[in-house]
């Protein structure tokens, strides 16, 4: 049952564990890649944006923080650019982290503060997005995460998924979302509070892989295909992580436009009585991280 690779990984970890005896901090080595829908390439606007998705990677003295946000496309029909909300949210959260205005064990706090800061902007921002924040407490070697909506994260250890976030949907294709609505429409448009986000915390080990992504990935690629790609990740350096992130995103992108492929999205629709097939064209954002040792 054990492949040579996973055996080798076990041995390596034992050796590493024995050798390092490290009381040292952990860190995340992260890379992002993605595609905007409609073949809009990942034009880097402000920070990292792929279509209406946005993400960030930030670090502070005590923690490494990742975030993804999926802008809800329906706003386009009302003349609002859906990417503005998600990009501003992620940029604001990044700034909060860089300035240390957060607690590593409270990722919901980052969302709450980020949302509050967006309301302090003189610009009348409009729009909504999902959000997923992952925080690695370096010294405590603990991961704290929160998720609002249908983006999410997986934690892969030893080739298996050991943790994952839950999707939050109000109804089909309507995820939980943070939003700033035009005045007067608060009763009509969905606006979930940051407190509605799911939180989780767990310890991490060296070599754990954390994949944070928007639903563009999870709706097009089932777990086993993602795991297959992740098995190819050999080294804990940025180039390898980036390469793997790129291949995952590329594969999801190819599958999204395959009309005959039975994507997880199509499967779910069928389970609910809709006779559909094929991928789901959507913005795809993949943020891939691996837990490594912190070296100065």
């Amino acid at each position, binding site marked *: 049952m054990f492949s040579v690779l996973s055996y080798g990984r076990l041995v390596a970890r034992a050796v590493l564990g024995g050798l390092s005896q490290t009381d040292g901090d952990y860190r995340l080595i992260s890379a992002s890649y993605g595609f905007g829908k409609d073949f809009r390439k990942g034009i880097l606007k402000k920070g990292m944006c792929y279509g209406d998705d946005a993400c960030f990677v930030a670090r502070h003295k005590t923690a490494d923080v990742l975030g993804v946000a999926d802008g809800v496309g329906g706003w386009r029909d009302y003349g609002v650019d859906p990417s503005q909300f998600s990009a501003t949210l992620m940029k604001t959260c990044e700034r909060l982290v860089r*300035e240390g205005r957060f607690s590593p064990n409270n990722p919901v706090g980052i969302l709450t503060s980020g949302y509050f*800061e967006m*309301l*302090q902007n*003189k610009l009348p921002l409009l729009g909504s997005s999902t959000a997923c924040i992952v925080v690695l407490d370096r010294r405590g070697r603990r991961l704290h995460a929160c998720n609002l909506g249908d983006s999410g994260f997986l934690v892969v250890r030893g080739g298996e998924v050991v943790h994952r976030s839950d999707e939050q949907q109000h109804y089909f294709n309507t995820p939980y979302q943070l939003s700033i609505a*035009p*005045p*007067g429409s608060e009763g009509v448009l969905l606006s979930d509070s940051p407190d509605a986000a799911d939180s989780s915390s767990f310890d991490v080990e060296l070599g754990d892989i954390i994949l944070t992504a928007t639903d563009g990935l999870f709706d097009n690629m089932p777990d086993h295909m993602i795991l297959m790609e992740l098995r190819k990740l050999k080294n804990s350096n940025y180039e390898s992580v980036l390469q793997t992130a790129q291949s995952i995103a590329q594969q999801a992108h190819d599958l999204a436009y395959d009309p005959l492929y039975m994507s997880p999205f199509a499967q779910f629709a069928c389970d609910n009585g809709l006779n559909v097939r094929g991928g789901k064209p959507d913005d795809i954002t993949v943020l891939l991280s691996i837990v490594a040792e912190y070296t100065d």
Partner: protein
Amino acid sequence: MFYYICLRRRSRSGTRGEALTSRRAVESGQRAALPVSVEVEQYAKEVLDFSSHYGSENSMSYTMWNLAGVPNVYPSSGDFTQTAVFRTYGTWWKQCASAPPPFRRIPKGFHSKDYIELAFEEPVYPTSVEVFETYYPGAIVQILACSHNPFSQNQPTDVRWEVLWSGEPTKAPTPQARQFAPTIKHINFPTNLLRLEVNSSLLDYYTELDAVILRGVKERQMLALYKLPIIDINDLSDGEEELTDVGVPFGKDTERTQNGYFEKLPYELIQLILSHLSLPDLCRLAQSSKLLQQHCYDPLQYTQLSLQPYWARLNDASLGHLQSRCTLLQRLNLSWTGHRGALTLTGISSFLKVCGQNLVCLELSCCHFLNEACLEVVSQTCTQLQELNLSSCDRLSPQAFTHICKFTHLRRLVLYRTKIEQTALLSILTFCVELRHLNLGSCVRIDDYDVVASMLAARCRSLRSLDLWRCRNLTDRGLAELAFGCKMLEELDLGWCPTLQSSTGCFQQLARSLPRLSKLFLTANRSVCDSDIEELARCCPSLQLLDILGTRLVSAAALKKLLQACPLLRLLDVSFCSQIDMRVVQELSGQFPLVSIKKSFTQ
């Protein structure tokens, strides 16, 4: 010896710098080559204190804490959230009826209206200070350095502030970003605490600052070892010879009077002449003769006293010296004074016990020495107080504010950025029924502003101006009661109050209830719409200042109606209003040239 005589003669005619260099020239041959000091460049580590800011407490948008660290915006220009912005700009606040009249005897060189204190990591002898101004530059009027290290554990003793640079308020030719690095004076102590003082009166919009660099050297340059005592002070006083010539006043007249003809002037005339002198000059003049001492110490010269320009040097002893002259004091400005232990309860008590009985106006903005005991003394001694300013006294504990209830004659009360709580405020409003001007801006500890509004409407019917900037939970209910009860209201600042919704009709009702309205700020209320503007046009012909920043719902046509109906309008802020672009602004400005139409940009 001959060489020494030559040196003295040269010194007498030259400047101190020349004397130093000539001295150095004599001795330089004996010294080895001087080591080059390494220049250290630092960004501010922490913002310690400031007088005001635009943003919310606990926010990082438009707040003073953004001045620490590396620049976030520079070299871009524009109105960005990541900059440090003060609460006011221009003369719009000074023009209002709610503004107190200025104090007399302000020294000519003192222009400062706001300040910010920054701490740096390492104390250095400063060689240059550079400020990144990213929007409407030109406001910086003074840069000072402090001898005290704010990170040291010791209590501050012998705190000295030295002015590194000082200038007039200016206005840069464009609103674009710039680096401001004036030539600074060299001081003889290392510093890691700087203070910037600003005055944005000439600017067309809020100035915004991004970062400050302090450049300096760790070790004092060898030049400074040539201390002043080595040079005979007589060499440097150029004027000394002139003074000795004027030994006999007014020359040959046989009718010798003690003070020349001066003492023949009527008492009141001398008093009038003296009333134009600044305070330090008045004190110096008192030392010149007994007559002038009598004049300079006359309590009639001290009916108004502003000690704010002297904040760096004022201490308990100074107050003690001034005490005997201030028995007729009516207006006292102690704003910005007394930090780091310079003023204590003893000094203040002693002063106010002598001088408080006639006090009508007391300015205590940013007075960090103020604690509950001090405020209690104020309430016991200054029973006639009508104006009290506690702006940014953010270290005053909530229970201290209950003492304000004793000022039953209070007409003007400023509580901007204080920690006052609901119960104390309601008590104050119950007792202080003569209130005309009330500032509750950024009072974040108040739980329910609707209740406060209700109390105001019930008790403070003479209210003329009300500042509710950033009052986070005022609703249409409270606003309606306020408009109904306080019919004399002329100025109302409801900026950044998110819970007011235009759809309730509250703004329209406000316009109908307050026909005398001259100032209305609805900054960042995203629900302001054409109907509100049209109702203002219909009902408020006296409108002078209007701010509707950040709404998507107001059209150019409605604004035109307003401009036509309100001939007194002087300020219209339409920044970030989606339907009002630069073309519209230019068109309206052309048609209504007396109105300053503001449209901020983010590049």
